């Protein structure tokens, strides 16, 4: 949901707390593939994370100015999504797999993904990844940096340009607000969440 904050858009949330909540959405016929996330926006019932993100990004001018900028933004966003996919799932991994994946994320972040983005920033010397303007790629990158810092606090120590980008994004008034306690930002997953989620989705 970081997307909406960057555009200073208010949004409501209807949380699914139980399996019954999920089944009701399913029987109402509004989940195209019986899955969440779902975003009701502009008369549409949109599912699929990328469909939602792409729509928001286009609507709020975070998707570049043309075809070629969009290609770069997509390439950057998709790489980050690969890394973030492991992060989203790891709390639910069995213990041995969990430790392996934590190590894997740290290794990939430090040896594959962060160097790639540091290189992009170095290549043009601009403040943002694409087109000298904030885009969804910057948003995703900073979110991923925060996520990786939960695993290893100094993880971007050797990436000065990433640090600069993070600081710059943090200083945006809308982001500052989102980072405050009491915002709609979700905290790290804890054991209670895990059990609750397992019950909702029956796994």
């Amino acid at each position, binding site marked *: 949901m970081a997307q909406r904050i960057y555009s200073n858009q208010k949004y409501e949330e209807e949380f699914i707390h139980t399996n019954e909540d999920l089944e009701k959405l399913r029987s109402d016929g509004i989940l*195209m*593939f019986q899955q969440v996330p779902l975003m009701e926006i502009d008369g549409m019932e949109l599912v699929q994370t*990328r469909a939602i993100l792409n729509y928001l990004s*286009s609507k709020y001018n975070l998707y570049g100015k043309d075809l070629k900028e969009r*290609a770069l933004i997509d390439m950057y966003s998709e790489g980050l999504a690969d890394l973030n996919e492991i992060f989203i799932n790891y709390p639910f991994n069995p213990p041995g797999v969990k430790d392996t994946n934590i190590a894997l994320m740290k290794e990939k972040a430090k040896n594959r993904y962060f160097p790639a983005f540091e290189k992009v920033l170095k290549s043009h010397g601009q403040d943002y990844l694409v087109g000298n303007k904030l885009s969804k790629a910057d948003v995703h990158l900073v979110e991923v940096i925060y996520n990786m810092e939960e695993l290893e606090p100094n993880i971007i120590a050797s990436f000065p340009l990433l640090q600069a980008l993070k600081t710059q994004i943090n200083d945006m008034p809308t982001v500052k607000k989102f980072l405050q306690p009491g915002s709609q930002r979700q905290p790290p997953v804890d054991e209670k969440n895990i059990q609750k989620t397992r019950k909702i989705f029956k796994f």
Partner: protein
Amino acid sequence: MAGKPVLHYFNGRGRMECIRWLLAAAGVEFEEKFVETPEDMEKLIKDGSLMYQQVPMVEIDGMKLVQTRAILNYIATKYNLYGKDMKERALIDMYAEGIFDLSEMVMSLVLCPPDQREANIALVKNKIKNRYLPAFEKVLKSHGQDYFVGNRLTRVDIHLLELLLYIEELDASLLASFPLLKALKTRISNLPNVKKFLQPGSQRKPPPDVEKIAEARKLFNFS
């Protein structure tokens, strides 16, 4: 403009096949450079051609694009297969992502250890029959048009045809109770560019050979 797009990948379907389909459907000729050994892969990496040290990679219009969706989105936009506005794009993305989720499941079946294959095949067939195909059939029924979105050809029709053919390879009976999807499959297959791609001798890749895949994974050190 540069010459033809050049596709860098293994000589198999994998994550490049949907890109081959889209280019073919758009009538775009392309070249392929196959990664056959770890040395081929290392060369691409050393040349700095692979942003994340991974393929697929497509050289197109002066860019070296990686990440399947980035490549597909670029091709779809360039060749007018991505809808006419933001809202059509949203629908296209929603449908395409559902297609990709299912394709991923179907493609992963060949990677399954033999003792889990039966159970996984049953699971996937269940999702095909009860979740995905009904959802797509419902869309076609809702507007009664010949194409999935916007009453004209878009990438969704192509992605869907590809998926329906894989489902047919898995179990042809799965398509039996979906008349509108079957009709779409026939119609899209008969479009000239698609018809050509479906002929023997095209750049379309055959079904995966389980043993060959196992060998390749060992060779390239995939987990």
